[in-house]
């Protein structure tokens, strides 16, 4: 997992995957998606985890009973 908090990310070298949680306890996922290499993502929201490994991202989502 990549440690990014304040986010103003643009044109990543590789696709980045993120998971947004309702709170820092990370019990509840409220959204997830991928940032493509032609995209920018901006947020001031802390409970977001980023992954550059899709399988790792999928594994975490499945732990929350989500199949992307």
């Amino acid at each position: 997992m990549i440690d990014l908090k304040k986010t103003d990310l643009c044109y990543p070298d590789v696709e980045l995957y993120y998971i947004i949680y309702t709170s820092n306890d990370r019990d509840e996922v409220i959204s997830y998606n991928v940032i493509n290499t032609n995209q920018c993502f901006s947020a001031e929201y802390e409970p977001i985890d980023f992954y550059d490994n899709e399988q790792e991202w999928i594994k975490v989502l499945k732990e929350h009973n989500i199949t992307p």
Partner: protein
Amino acid sequence: MSWYANGMGIPMIPQSGDGPTPPGPSTGLQFVYEFDGLNQYVGGLTVQGLISRTADVDWGDGTSLTGTTGFITSNYSTAGDYTITIDNITNSDQPIESQVLKYLLNYGVDAKARIKEILSFGTSITWVNTFSMLNDNSRLTHVDLSTLNIRAFDPATDPSQNPVYRTNANFAGSFDNMPLLTTLDFSDFDFSNFIQFSSIAGNCPNLNEGVIFGPNNDFSSIGKNEIVSSIFLYDLSNLNQKQLSTEQYDLLLNRLDATYVPSGVTFYTLLNVGSVQYSSNGSTARANLVATGKMLITDGGQI
């Protein structure tokens, strides 16, 4: 990966043009229906739509019904396009009943595939539950969104509604699979009761005139829902740069910045426009929306 620094921009000044004044829209739901000479029914058009309510129906062939209710059908004898008007609908603003009103436009694959134009949603009609209201209308070329009045569900007055559907002052899942649609003109659309705006215009390959916003669009109601308090979605990621131009994205950002009001510490809105880019005209608004508007924005960056 790389990091991106926003530049300061000049807020866009929307332009408006003068032109001839068009005739006023119908007070009733009015649409053009293609009858192929074989199908005697308007695809179950009013099977559900007029249960527990009455309406006047002009079939566009010189015949009409007044104060009719329940199951009714057209009786066309010649193939052609007919302009159907359904007016003076009673109880149109009651959610349980008007929830099925959308089936007037959406009920039955055969029927909705024959709707070629929606000329008016009816200035006298208040629509409720617009979730997936329009999709798979494969011959639809034009829809007049300026006449669409939508109200949100009110838990105080709509207690029988499933809470999930109280969010349905939205277009989630709408305008999908419309291969002949060339534009979605929201410039005069009243978003003021609009809570969510997501996943629109998937598989609309001819949407070349694009999605159009206007200088008076009011997005102040995004997320005003007591059931889902954490996040709301404005997902236009189905659109490409041609379908949502930089100019229109700039305008959307500026209108959001001018009207959107975050409503709680746990409330955030996702805005996703795919790879559509903004310009310096939208950069300040975008920065404001992220910093103070609690928006999480995905786009194609600044040109």
